[in-house]
């Protein structure tokens, strides 16, 4: 098989014994050297995951994958959070305006934006921003997470939070500056999806009787919109939570474009070295993250709806 990880580690000329030994270690064969069936391998792996053991990296001196992942995870989380904020800000406003001005030019334009924005290939938009704002205008740094030479004490791993907690204002300023372009890139591309979700949710709510009843009481439009938004917010949030996978994918592409030291860059790096264990571990972590977010969204939904609370 091309790219056989074992061979790529030991080289083409290793002894039979050495190869077998390694295979045994990786769980590919059992004690007697017979290949382990795939499902047993999978079962082993799952068991290990539960024990917190994602295996060891195939390179870098067999450093546990889990540690490597934990090193890179905070960067991705930070980028994802900020990207999320940007996409909500743009997406929610676009969706609400679009719903309120339904069937007008603004609505059509915003809906078009929703369609087009997702098709903007993230690396390209990122590079466009780099060209424009970093290289030509010099407003923001081209890449990286923080200025070289600057250091933030590791508490949460989120530079912005940590620099505030430690009162490190230069680091804060630098982190924020480095966050602008990547967050904008991620945020703009994902905002289209959110604007459509918001629009649909708002339209759903605005067509309900209590909105007409509120209008019949002569309440001003902005109050009506506020009520509609409050009611639409829970379904919107839920749906956004379900889009977390989208956000994660976007984050990975953004990271590789901006040399952002998170899971995306980690992934890219390990692919180049054919470090399959690390790849597997990353994929597992992604799956866990997505499940966690879905769980959290469910809990928030249950909490925020008074009908369920009481």
């Amino acid at each position: 098989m091309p790219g056989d990880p074992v061979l790529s580690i030991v080289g083409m000329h290793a002894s039979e014994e050495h190869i077998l030994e390694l295979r045994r270690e990786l769980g590919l064969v059992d004690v007697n050297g017979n290949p382990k069936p795939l499902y047993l391998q999978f079962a082993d792996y799952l068991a290990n995951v539960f024990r917190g053991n994602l295996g060891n990296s195939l390179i870098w001196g067999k450093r546990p994958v889990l540690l490597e992942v934990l090193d890179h995870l905070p960067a991705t989380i930070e980028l994802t959070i900020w990207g999320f904020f940007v996409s909500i800000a743009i997406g929610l406003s676009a969706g609400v305006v679009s719903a309120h001005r339904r069937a007008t030019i603004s609505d059509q334009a915003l809906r078009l934006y929703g369609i087009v924005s997702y098709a903007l290939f993230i690396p390209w938009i990122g590079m466009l921003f780099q060209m424009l704002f970093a290289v030509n205008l010099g407003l923001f740094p081209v890449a990286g997470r923080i200025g070289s030479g600057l250091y933030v004490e590791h508490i949460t791993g989120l530079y912005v939070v940590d620099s505030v907690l430690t009162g490190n204002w230069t680091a804060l300023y630098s982190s924020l500056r480095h966050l602008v372009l990547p967050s904008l890139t991620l945020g703009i591309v994902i905002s289209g999806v959110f604007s459509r979700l918001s629009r649909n949710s708002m339209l759903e709510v605005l067509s309900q009787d209590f909105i007409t009843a509120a209008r019949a009481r002569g309440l001003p439009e902005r109050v009506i919109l506020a009520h509609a938004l409050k009611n639409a917010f829970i379904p919107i949030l839920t749906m956004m939570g379900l889009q977390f996978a989208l956000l994660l994918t976007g984050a990975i592409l953004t990271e590789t474009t901006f040399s952002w030291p998170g899971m995306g860059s980690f992934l890219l790096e390990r692919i180049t070295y054919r470090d399959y264990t690390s790849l597997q571990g990353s994929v597992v972590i992604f799956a866990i993250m997505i499940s966690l977010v879905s769980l959290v969204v469910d809990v928030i939904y249950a909490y925020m709806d008074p009908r369920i609370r009481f």
Partner: protein
Amino acid sequence: MDGQEMTSETILSIQDLKTYYPTTRGIVKAVDDVTLNARRREFLGVVGESGSGKSTLGLSVLRLVPPPGKIIHGSIAFDGTDLLRLSNAEMRRVRGRKISMVFQDPMTSLDPLMKIGGHIVETIRLHEGVSKSDAAARAAKVLDMVGIGPERFDDYPHQFSGGMRQRVMIALAICLNPNLVIADEPTTALDVIVQARILDLLSDLREKHGLTLMLITHDLAAVIERCDAVAVAYAGQIVEYGTRKQIGGAPLHPYTQGLLKSTPNVRLVTTKSSSIAGPIPDMTNPPAGCRFHPRCAFAMEICAKSTPAVTRRDDGRIVGCHLYD
């Protein structure tokens, strides 16, 4: 068209109103040339089947016809002012304050995320800018008027039954002391015993506060029982109008007669109850001439050809039927 006469007694005067909805199937002429007056402190009942346009009529008065529907012709004079000529801001000041509305489905007419006391407080404050505590006091008072105790002030809508929610809606409708309350099928979604209570409540409040009440419903029996004046709607038009005694005792229009016959009522002597034959007219393409003629037992040749003029008779009744030309 000869309509009702307007006097200083008239608080609402709808003249030649046309409200249409454009749809992919055609233009639905929900309200097609309606003239109707309501006198001060009068209890007016507007009766009709679904599809008669009666709900649209109520929404038109408040200019709340949902898009793509639009009022395209006519005037609605309230206390001397033509509501159709007001700006949006001015109309908003009329809503809730001078004219208010009670809607059909109490289950969906309240914001599920807001406490019921909050609904009333908000309405009062947004119209009159009083302090929170003042508004809360007034809200409690008006809730008491509709029979809801102060201990329920901070409850959410889903904690109330349908009948109770409708009482809240009524409280909302009267909290700013309007002159006219339009109730659009306020009891349809409730069970029979509760229906009677709600209608009683509305009648009481009307007397106590001197309100003009316009009840829109399909329940002819309820209307004859309680209303001062009755208007019968069919296919977007008013086909008959009179006092409750006139309509209940001697209905002129064949449709009204049919409605009366098909209404089960323990007080009427007639033992047979029949329904009106034929389907409800398609509002994108209503029958030519008199709209009721396909279902009318007394239809004559002229009925399919020309629309009957709606005329005012000597006894003050109004009817649109070739039988009475």
